[in-house]
């Protein structure tokens, strides 16, 4: 049954995870840097925010600290890549692996439940927002704010330099931009957003778990790619919007997969297959074209 809570739940998830997807968009698409550290920075944000709440800190403060922790994690990946000259993929994997231990250290155990604790949602409820709308409204407002800030930022002088660093580093260096610094900066804001999203998710679902980051990168990529396939966005403003909608569509697809009878444990496999098909689409169409061009006898041989 498509009751209001069910529909709202799908939209809420789409919104809250879209912040993570925007982080992936910044590294993968803007910076052209395949950053895998997000698999560690997402649970990092969750761990930090859950631990702080359990320790009695304000849930909003916990979110800000989660964001800051993500910034640091991204900057670390950037340091590995630009200073120590470790390849982008490996730098991300190293950060991700190190963060697994860090996250366990922060939490002190593998899982922190928050069901009895105050979260930013319960605080907003106390402030007068009805509980059935509180997540929907607050996530919507947050996503709109982040989108507007990102649109603005990507059109500033620094934003131009960041985009050009991903597009043509040789050119933008010849125009006086320190591309290494831009990479570190881009990775930091990307992972900051991802950790912030992780912090929100922990408070929203009522727990932080050390394993909740597995597959973050694939989920984020899925959202980015779904948005691209649906809208073919050219301008930055529409690209950002398409990532957000892509995240919602992805959550809807997951919801439908569950309805079709897939076990929740199968979802990562389903997601991966989705991403493989999307990424391989250009190759498939090339194969098809080639097959058409070949004469029948040659194709059969």
């Amino acid at each position: 049954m498509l009751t209001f809570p069910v529909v709202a739940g799908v939209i809420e998830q789409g919104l809250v995870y879209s912040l993570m997807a925007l982080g992936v968009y910044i590294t993968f698409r803007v910076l052209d840097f395949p950053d895998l550290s997000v698999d560690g920075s997402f649970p990092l944000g969750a761990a930090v925010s859950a631990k702080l709440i359990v320790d009695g800190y304000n849930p909003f403060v916990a979110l800000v600290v989660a964001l800051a922790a993500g910034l640091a994690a991204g900057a670390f990946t950037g340091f590995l890549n630009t200073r120590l000259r470790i390849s982008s993929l490996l730098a991300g994997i190293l950060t991700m692996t190190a963060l697994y231990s860090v996250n366990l250290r922060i939490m002190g155990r593998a899982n922190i439940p928050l069901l009895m604790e105050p979260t930013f949602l319960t605080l907003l409820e106390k402030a007068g927002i009805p509980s059935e709308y509180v997540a929907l409204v607050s996530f919507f407002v947050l996503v709109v704010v982040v989108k507007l800030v990102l649109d603005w930022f990507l059109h500033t002088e620094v934003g131009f330099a960041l985009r050009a660093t991903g597009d043509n580093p040789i050119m933008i260096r010849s125009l006086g931009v320190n591309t290494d610094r831009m990479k570190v900066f881009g990775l930091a804001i990307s992972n900051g957003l991802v950790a912030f999203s992780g912090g929100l998710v922990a408070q929203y679902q009522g727990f932080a778990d050390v394993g909740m980051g597995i597959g973050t990168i694939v989920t984020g990529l899925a959202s980015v790619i779904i948005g691209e396939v649906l809208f073919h966005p050219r301008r930055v403003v529409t690209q950002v919007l398409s990532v957000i909608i892509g995240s919602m569509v992805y959550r809807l697809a997951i919801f439908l997969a569950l309805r079709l009878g897939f076990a929740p444990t199968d979802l990562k496999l389903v997601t991966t297959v989705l991403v493989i098909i999307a990424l391989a689409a250009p190759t498939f169409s090339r194969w098809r074209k080639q097959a058409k061009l070949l004469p029948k006898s040659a194709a059969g041989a």
Partner: protein
Amino acid sequence: MLELYEIRKTFNLGTPTPTPALRGVSLKLSPGEFVTIIGSNGAGKSSLLNAIAGTFPVDSGKIIIDGTDVTDWPEYKRASLVGRVFQDPMMGTAASMSIEENMAMAVKRGQARGLARGIKGEMRSYFRELLAGLGLGLENRLTDKVRLLSGGQRQSLTLLMATLSKPKLLLLDEHTAALDPKTAQQVSQLTDKIVRENNLTVLMVTHNMEHALKTGTRTIMMHEGQVIFDVSGRKREQMKVADLLSEFARLRGERLADDKILLG
């Protein structure tokens, strides 16, 4: 404007196959000089330009631009003094960004970049005016992605961008070599025009000896990482390609290994 003292650079140093690229190059350029560089493949022409731009650190020697010792400066820092156009038309612009965004980045060349809007209103009319000067119709396509432009259009745009904020030194690395002959000629003429209008100091690598003698105010020939011939003024005006070739043969005591490459 530019002073080079005994610049040396060997690639693959410390390996079994060290490749010397620059073997003690010294050169002095006065403001407003337009120097063309010729030489066969592997003579060190591009390496010289890369060394000046800071693409790699040199092994020894000193590089002074406009009175400042930049030998230890990284490439991005030297950009405040040096404008550059590459051989590959794709190299000088960001394809996924619009014409006006590319130009706006060039306006800020060598300056600190902040959180101000990348494109301000008054820039647009300025850009339109500059683009109209190219005569390629780009003035009406400010928001088009650079990806949509042809090689010649992109190279013209790059040239415009490299000279937008009047560099102390302009480096042109065979910037017409990848274009078809007609477009190459147009871009060459455009280069002359921009250099004259802004009274720029220029180093231009070319494969075309005739072009090298006709363009600019001075010509140097490189061979095996060294400057072996340097001509300017009246002597250069009277020179022909054949004279250059015989000069080379006299200096090296050998015939050119590959005349074709040198002649372009």
